[in-house]
């Protein structure tokens, strides 16, 4: 299912550190290795503050990694010149978490939708409205929306506009940073359906950040679970419920609410807080919250090891068992 030759984007040993007060450093991403495949969706799940957003900011060249490289078809993104970075932005577009905040409040939908194309000289000003209507149609919105302002629309409509804008340049990779978490549950589903349909039509690779494991496993081909800047498990989306091995992934699954859940069964929440990224422990990042914690976990950091095709886990307990 995942072939080497289909890799569109690959992150190799990405480390991102920020200087913090008192001469400390905040480690947002710690040796992240991920591959994005052509036409497939890679979901990244994790708690708030685990470095998901930092990682995608580096992918779309808004930040540079402290070390490591992000290769897009073999080209290292941090080595590109200003002009090349600008040209490369056409290949990667982003849908933001809060659609309203990602639109200029003084702009109409027609200008918002066509801005990317005009930036790259791919659209004449006279054809603006026609193109905007075409894009609206693509995301199943009425063409009359061209004259509206974003604050006159509902959350789901705004997110559709956001998707239409991101896809106007026909990018190869679409990055969605919690694109559905600001939406109502009923709207979430239709937005996801839209994304999946567009992905199939245009063969786009998606990088989808989410903290809802149940939502993401419904459409992601691959799920990467992130904890405190580390990828702890990479698993095919459909296997997450049955085959996940890492204690953290299982804890996330256990903390999931569901309509079909057993009312008498206790909802398992994870004990204690995640350690501060200012003070990352030696060894396994999950050690203080893990019930299987061993001596080895406190000294040696586990690395991702393949347990099955397309399924990697970073856990001493799992690999030794």
């Amino acid at each position: 299912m995942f072939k080497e030759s289909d890799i569109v984007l690959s992150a190799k040993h990405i480390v991102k550190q920020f200087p913090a007060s008192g001469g400390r450093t905040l480690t947002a991403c710690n040796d992240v290795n991920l591959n994005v495949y052509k036409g497939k969706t890679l979901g990244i799940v994790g708690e708030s503050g685990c470095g998901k957003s930092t990682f995608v900011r580096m992918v779309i060249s808004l930040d540079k990694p402290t070390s490591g490289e992000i290769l897009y078809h073999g080209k290292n993104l941090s080595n590109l010149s200003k002009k090349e970075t600008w040209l490369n932005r056409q290949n990667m577009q982003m849908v933001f978490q809060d659609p309203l905040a990602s639109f200029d409040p003084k702009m109409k939908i027609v200008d918002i939708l066509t801005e990317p194309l005009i930036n790259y000289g791919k659209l004449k000003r006279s054809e603006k409205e026609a193109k905007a209507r075409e894009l609206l149609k693509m995301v199943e919105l009425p063409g009359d929306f061209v004259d509206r302002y974003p604050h006159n629309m509902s959350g789901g409509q705004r997110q559709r506009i956001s998707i239409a804008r991101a896809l106007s340049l026909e990018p190869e990779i679409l990055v969605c940073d919690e694109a559905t978490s600001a939406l109502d549950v009923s709207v979430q589903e239709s937005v996801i359906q839209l994304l999946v349909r567009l992905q199939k039509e245009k063969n786009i690779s998606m990088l989808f950040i989410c903290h809802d494991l149940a939502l993401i496993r419904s459409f992601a081909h691959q799920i990467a679970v992130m904890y405190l800047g580390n990828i702890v498990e990479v698993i095919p989306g459909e296997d997450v419920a049955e085959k996940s091995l890492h204690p953290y992934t299982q804890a996330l699954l256990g903390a999931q609410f569901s309509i079909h859940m057993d009312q008498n069964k206790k909802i398992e929440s994870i004990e204690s807080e995640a350690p501060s990224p200012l003070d990352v422990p030696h060894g396994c990042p999950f050690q203080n919250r893990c019930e299987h914690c061993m001596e080895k976990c406190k000294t040696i950091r586990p690395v991702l090891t393949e347990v099955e095709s397309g399924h990697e886990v970073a856990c001493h307990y799992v690999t030794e068992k």
Partner: protein
Amino acid sequence: MKKVLRIFKENKQFTLFFILGLVVIGVAIFAPQLSPYDPLDAVMTESLQEPSSAHPFGTDKLGRDLLSRVIFGTRTSLIMTLCLVAVIFVIGTFLGVIAGYFGGIVDAVIMRIADMMISFPGLVLAIAIAGMLGPNLVNAVISIAAVSWTKYARLARSMVLKVKKSLYIEAAVVNGTKTWKILLVHVLPNMVTQMVVTAAADIGTMMLELASLSFLGFGATAPTPEWGLMLNEGRTYMAKAPWLMIYPGIAIVICVVVFNMLGDSIRDVLDPRQD
């Protein structure tokens, strides 16, 4: 059109001072038609005459009609003030936007220069600059502009810092928008309202500063009809001919009050919180 009418109806204070502002501007434009005499026409036989039906505001020491001079003074004051506000608005905003958006060394250099300017008492520095350049109207505008742009630069900078953090700027970068276009299309329109409000409220103050400079002899030069200068000329005859100071003084007070109140009510009308 209906929308404009509604704004006027809903904001009585704004409407009142807007009309008064238009009257002041009208006086400046139609000065030649409104004034009974030539403001520069000296009739020595009629010097220092008391206000009468022939000369409602009296005459000055050279026998020039004071009413005509006050009316023409509106022209000088208004043109100078508007030029001054336009200059500091453009320069201050430009420098502030650059400093705020690019940050780093550009920011440091521009803002340290601004700090330097602020650490002097404004009018004293303006007098020093005007003194160096020589007294005339253009130099008065330049010298006050040199000390007043900092306010706009600081305001623009702080606004840009706020706008810069917003997600739509980031989205624009991801969309491949070039920096200059981000500044023009995304940053400026989202801060210009506040800047305009400040500028409108500043017209009165600036008018006063220009008049002060003229009064001190660093602005308008004789025989230009200018209120500050007229006050200075009348100073010597204060006991004998008080109308020489009263009428230009009243003119300054009226103008400053009208434009201050206009600026205030524009702030109410354009209140950015309503956006």
